[in-house]
């Protein structure tokens, strides 16, 4: 089987993002970049399939700035066979639909059996590009996937829902957006890291793909820095019932988490 994984490089989850002065973006300096966590699970799912079915190839692509090469190297180190970087001017402000169309061009050329990606990226938290890619390709898609198995005449795909899993069967190529699973994505071995360092990562120019990069996009009007964790409110010395009522009210009205 030929698998293709689409990944995005995002700030690592441990980074405390800082909002820039103009409030339109985060400050990139000092940010540790990593493969978006759900995308890592997508890579892991693809590699597990490869482990079980020798002869499977796993390619990985990303649309992003030059630093996104590091994310591709990480994917190669984990065990992917080849990687492609799609980059160019204005690549960081590309809208979701445009990204999907650019990816679709690369997918068309590569003709994989399945395309996998994380169910959402940890920077915009949207969960759109996977579905948009499927739409552009004219393929079916299954979201929130935890497992897939090649079977007679297609692929059986497990989708996580409340209370269990729906099993779907795709008779041809499909896009899978992948959910986190119990098992962590594999840590690359050192030989894998060393090999990946030497591997060539071809670059494709965004503009030359011939994709329609227009279409609606989401504009960021303003970003608010994460609220500093205020000192907590200590509640004590009272009748438990009174404290309980007060806390319930606070959670509903002040914290607004109910």
């Amino acid at each position, binding site marked *: 089987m030929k698998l293709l994984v689409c990944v995005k490089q995002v700030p*690592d989850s441990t*980074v*405390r993002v800082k909002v820039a002065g103009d409030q339109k973006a985060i400050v990139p300096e000092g940010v540790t970049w990593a493969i978006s966590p759900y995308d890592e699970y997508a890579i892991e799912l693809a590699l597990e399939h490869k482990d079980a079915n020798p002869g499977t190839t796993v390619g990985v692509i990303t649309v992003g700035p030059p630093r996104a090469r590091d994310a591709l190297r990480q994917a190669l180190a984990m065990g992917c066979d080849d990687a492609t970087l799609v980059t160019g001017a204005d690549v960081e402000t590309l809208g979701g639909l445009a990204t999907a169309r650019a990816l679709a061009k690369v997918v068309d050329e590569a003709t994989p059996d399945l395309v996998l990606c994380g169910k959402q990226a940890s920077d915009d938290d949207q969960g759109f590009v996977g579905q948009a890619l499927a739409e552009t390709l004219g393929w079916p898609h299954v979201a929130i996937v935890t497992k897939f198995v090649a079977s007679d005449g297609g692929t059986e795909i497990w989708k996580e829902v409340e209370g269990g899993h729906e099993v779907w069967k795709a008779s041809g190529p499909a896009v899978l957006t992948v959910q986190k699973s119990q*098992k962590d994505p594999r840590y690359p*071995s*050192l*030989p894998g890291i060393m090999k990946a360092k030497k591997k060539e990562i071809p670059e494709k120019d965004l503009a030359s793909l011939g994709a329609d990069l227009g279409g609606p996009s989401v504009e960021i009007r303003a970003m608010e820095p994460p609220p500093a964790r205020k000192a907590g409110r200590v509640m004590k010395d009272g009748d438990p019932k009174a404290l309980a009522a007060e806390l319930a009210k606070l959670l509903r009205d002040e914290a607004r988490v109910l």
Partner: protein
Amino acid sequence: MTAPTQGILVIVLAAAVALGFGIGGYRVWKLYRYMRLGWDEDRSDRPATRLRDELVIYLGQSKLFKRPYLVRGLAHALIFWGFLVITLGTVDLLLNGIFGLHVPGTETGLFAWTIDLFAIAVLASIALAGVRRMFFRPPTMHVAPGGYVILVLIGVLMLSLLVFESAGIAAELVKQGFTPPPLAGLFAPAVRGPYAHLVFAGAWWVHVLTVLAFAAYLPHTKHLHIVTTLPNVLFRSQRPRGALRAMADLEEQETFGAATMRDFSWKQHLDGYTCTECGRCSDQCPALATGKPLDPQKIVLDVRDLLLREGDLLMRDVHASGTPPAHQTETKPEELWACTTCAACVEACPVTIEHVDKIVDMRRFLAMMESAAPPEAQRALTNIERAGNPWGESREARADWADGLEIPTLAEKPDAEYLYFVGCAASYDRRNQRVAKALAAILRSAGLSFAILGREETCNGDPARRIGNEYLWQIQAQANIEAFDRYSVRKVITSCPHCFNTIANEFPQLGGRYEVLHALTLVDSLIKEGRIRMAREGPVDRGNVSGHPERTTSSVDLAGGREVVAYHDPCYLGRHNKIYDAPRAVMDAVPGVERVEIEPHHRERGFCCGAGGGRMWMEEQVGQRVNHRRIDQLRAAQADATKVASGCPFCLIMLEEGVGAKGLQEQVRPVDVLELVASRLEGSADASH
């Protein structure tokens, strides 16, 4: 004494010698070639120290005399020394028998007496050994038939020696001019008469043939240690004990860690030959003691056995790799991950085997080649890589513990004399942040010029190295070395023995050389210099030394103005770096503290808290928690101690967990020694700010 080897008997003797040494020698040759399958580690550094170790450890048998093995150690030492002396005699006998020559000195009364006395000592010792094995065998001892064979052989040797000495005196074959030695002289009369010559000859031949049988048999058993201990001690690692072996040129290597038997060095294989199967390492291992599958002796012997099994294959085919030692049995990885690298085994081993290095080499294979470290450990490593600390807390929060304390960073004060390397635990763990604050207060009160790296500090990679991910360790260590050198750091203080160990003993492997002090060593000298003044009496200032009110439920026991505090030796401070006295001296200098010991598990025999070797980041699935066992020991030894003090953030976390789990929060509180000092600093309410 002339040997009874006239005429044809000389030929017989020569043939017997050839046979005995031939069989033995062939085996030794084979073992040597197997050993050389290992890579060529250079162990020729520090020749003077090596020679000294040889004299003290090998000849002096110093490591035999550790508690609780004193009597057994003495018995063995006597057997060994006796063996040395008697061997000299044996050489003399053979030379005499074949060539009619004598080794100089062997005809003297002194020699005869020495031999006699040692023969008695040896006989007594082996009798003791035999009785113990037969009637009082400890459960951890496994005695193979070979054990009894050796005892019998030695017995025969000694008895035959005594008999022919006696007979020699009786038959007046002994040069006159000295008093007959005790035992030989005692039996001589019984052998007088015409039979004396016969008895002499008979006993002589029994003795010599037994020696030759010994020579043939020895190399096929663990008793080869008699010979291999000599080089094993001479070529022992002279690295600081806490320092793991460097791996240079990671970029160039194709395999990492012990993927095959060729990836152990010749010295590591020599360790296998030298294991006497005494079980002292097993006795001291905290993992084994708490029911984990790890037995250090088994690790050593399994590697040896694998070499013996696969030696021929590997010698025959230079491309063959054989079985990876970490997969030689199905449970091997579990055994390896159970190790806390506390080095109690290395400390206990009388023949200087290096168990920890073997275990780490196999871990390196699992971690780097197979990416097979336990998942929780992997997570900690990924966190170190991405966030600079094993908990995955934000890099930007690293210096938050110092908020409001006005502790300068090196960027703000580049000429500070000392860098206080805080470490991940004191930076992020709330409990340990109090220790960092305590140290800052102490250093301030002593007027020391210091600064921290603040956000430029990142994990020094110690957990990565212990888990076997050498690559990540190098990355982290290099990052810190670069930061240190950017500020021309010369002196470093740490409050964590793991930070201390890697910065002091391992950074030099990457070119980072600094003067490193653990906080307690520094505080000890500051106290002795009179730069730290502690309040003599009165209630302890429980206020704001560390910015937190201490638990109101457990008060300092000032009955009679003292609190009883037990000291727990952190493995990486004590056993690994031999810092036993400074923390104790500091405790003794704190007014109102009565220091007690967790005997017998203290100092070199300290029992691990369970967090070392990267195990802080792993789950214990089997047996009793190591830290719970430690608390049991504490309570058994010192039920009156209201506090247990150590000098390590991980020991603190583990002891806190253990005390909590056992519901002992009211009875005993874990603290850091620095907190004891800080809480009594004169003018302490100001000292922290």
